[in-house]
């Protein structure tokens, strides 16, 4: 079986709210795919459709080329963590994994193995109702690993984790991808995924806004903008605009130049003897790139509310 998730043109509405508006993307094996977007972008709904929990109005989601609901022992194909709080409080963590294991024809030995992997051996025989948020996340991860699946899918796994937990989680996700698994991780904060994801699917308003590698996204967002500090902004602007650049005032004696790289700018200004004290290429952060992409989606929602 191919270790992939394939979301193909999925539409889903809840009453008057269009939650998914042709969501389409693919999760490839051997890397961590970050699924990022503001709250309400449709990330959780997409994952629920992938798991067969919500039936799409149109389109399909495939796991390894097959629909999830047709899978026999599905947890051996796709491990998922959607809601770590979804636990019967009076059942112990170990027993929670035990019934899941039994539903897949697995035994208690497998339960103890994943408890160790998730670092939850000590609390395993305590009631899940008394678990901290971080312990619940670890139990959820143990459940996702139970069937040793080639594909993993986690919804906001960093939520409620302490810094130590976040570091552990990052390493853990990277190691899963390094072992050849396809890993889809959602988040509404780019910073959480910055050093973890190899590939990004940026969603807004129920569809994909960008489906790109991290490097590609940065390059696209940075463009060929440069920052110029000069004591004669008027002359500098005239010279650069004459050469085809667009120039905007960014502050007192500060210009933003688009359309020329720093080498060209420096040569032009030197040739016309325009003095400048600072010239630097602008480097966008992932956060800026992400905000630039999702800005419209967020504003749209704020302005128009739900879509009929």
């Amino acid at each position: 079986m191919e270790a992939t998730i394939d979301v193909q043109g999925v539409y889903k509405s809840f009453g008057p709210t269009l939650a998914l508006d042709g969501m389409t993307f693919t999760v490839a094996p051997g890397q961590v795919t970050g699924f990022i977007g503001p709250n309400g972008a449709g990330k959780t709904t997409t994952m629920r459709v992938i798991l067969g929990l919500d039936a799409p109005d149109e389109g399909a989601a495939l796991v390894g080329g097959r629909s999830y609901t047709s899978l026999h022992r599905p947890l051996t194909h796709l491990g998922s963590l959607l809601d770590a709080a979804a636990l019967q409080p009076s059942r112990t963590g170990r027993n929670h994994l035990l019934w899941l294991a039994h539903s897949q024809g697995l035994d208690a030995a497998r339960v103890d193995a994943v408890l160790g992997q998730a670092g939850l051996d000590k609390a395993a025989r305590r009631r899940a109702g008394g678990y901290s948020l971080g312990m619940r996340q670890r139990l959820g991860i143990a459940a996702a690993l139970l069937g040793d699946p080639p594909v993993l899918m986690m919804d906001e796994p960093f939520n409620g984790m302490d810094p130590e937990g976040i570091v552990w989680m990052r390493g853990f996700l990277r190691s899963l991808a390094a072992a050849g698994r396809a890993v889809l991780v959602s988040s509404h904060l780019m910073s959480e995924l910055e050093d973890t994801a190899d590939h990004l699917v940026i969603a807004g308003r129920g569809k994909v806004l960008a489906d790109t590698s991290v490097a590609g996204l940065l390059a696209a967002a940075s463009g060929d903008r440069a920052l110029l500090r000069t004591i004669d902004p008027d002359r500098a602007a005239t010279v650069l605009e004459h050469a085809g650049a667009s120039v905007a005032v960014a502050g007192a004696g500060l210009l933003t130049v688009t359309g020329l790289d720093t080498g060209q700018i420096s040569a032009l200004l030197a040739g016309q003897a325009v003095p400048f004290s600072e010239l630097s290429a602008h480097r966008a952060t992932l956060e800026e790139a992400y905000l630039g992409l999702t800005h419209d989606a967020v504003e749209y929602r704020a302005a128009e509310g739900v879509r009929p």
Partner: protein
Amino acid sequence: MTATQAPPRTAAPAEHGSFAATLRAEWTKFRTVRGWVIGLTVAALVTVLVGLLSGAGSMSSCNGHPCHFLHPVGPGGEAVTDTFYFVHRPLASHGSITARVTSLTGELPTATGSGRVRAGQGPQSGMHPGLEPWSKGGLIIKANTTQGSAYAAVLVTGDHGARMQYDYTQDIAGPPGRPAPASPRWLRLTRAGDTITGYASADGTHWTQVGIATLPGLPATVQAGMFATSPPYSVTTAQGLLGMSGTGGPTLASAALDHVSLHGTVPGAWTGTQLGAGRSDASPAMPGRYHQAGGTFTVTGSGDIAPDAPGGGGPGQTLDHTLVGALAGLIAVVVVAAMFITAEYRHGLIRTTCAASPRRGQVLAAKAIVIAAVSFAAGLAAAAVAIPLGSHVLRANGNYLYPVSLLTEVRLVAGTAAMLAVAAVLALALGAMLRRSAIAVTLVIAAIILPYLVAVTNVLPPGAGNWLMRLVPAAGFAIQQTIPNYPQVSNACAVAQGCYPLAPWAGFAVLCAWAAAALCGALLLLRRRDA
């Protein structure tokens, strides 16, 4: 990058063991929540305890002393009433008796509104002419004059025409009509070994066979002759929350017979014998008599030859009274069963369940099997303990318990357990549909326990109460009925007396139908709704 455009492969056929795994997972789920296991244990315990408490509170005494009623037992092991006046002669293993009944008349007590008249009170005081529908007189062949011995009779009745009855529980209808001097009724019984055949005729020439009775082990010499008897009269005068109050008392029937002829008699003369009607008779009856003038015999008797059914006037408890606690146990079972699914909705666990077992119908089926099995086990253990313990307590308190066959007792134990199991499935299905345990539990209690209480306490008129007990899931309680409804006994069939309007398995089938319907609804919603 481009999306993989590989077409979806066709779904592989479900491999074997997938349902077994789901079933095992649901069983693991159930046993790992301590509250649910405790809940079912409580269900079993309250079933036993409430039964014992109810038994301990059920005292029966006669003027402050233990009652010493005789409770004859028929050839089939059931409690019987065998009280009548018998004019008889010995009969050999082959022979016959024939007679013409020219009239059947009687006397009924005049209602005074002061409750029941018991045996031994002034006979004929406040009586007026009249017959009970099941007053009877005619010919009878009986093993001996001991109460409860085997017999076969062909007889005329107050309102039910000519009949052939034998061994208390058997009743076959013959030609209709009550005999009168202008329209007498000829009757005949023939004996050939253990086989007795009853005939009726309008003219003594053209005979119709009414029925054939086989009485195994009938002695070579039996008693054959004429009899008359009449069951106690009772009328319900008031209905209250805690039962009915009525008035009534013993009645008398007189049969006039002539053209009496016997074949195959052994030497002996006509003897008049009163069976029952003493102080130790459980149901009220008056002593009878007979009078012979020429060829005409007038036989007068009081009582009945019939199965002793609860509500028929005799004091006694049916065995299902030891299981009144099942009502309390049922509440605990229903709560646990509803929570078995609603807890998953409440905690969002249903999504984990559906992700682990995407075939939702299988999940529902597995849950139903698990909750039914554990409820059945709890009910079985409770009933198996409550019946012997409860019987002991009831008897120790001076109560008479109607005997039942082993098969009936097994049905009572297994049926009570099955009723709990099916009620649990109903609660589970409603829980799956409504996703809220409080609403599901309230609905099941309203459908099972409320109608039962309404029927027991006679809040509704008997007709409406009986229809309710036929239609709603509470009909399942009929599985606990131990004494059959005998049409030839005119007792009030009341739920309080362990008598239900539907036969045991029919009532149970009504409950099953409700559970099946709810399960179908739950399946439909579970498949259609997003988890």
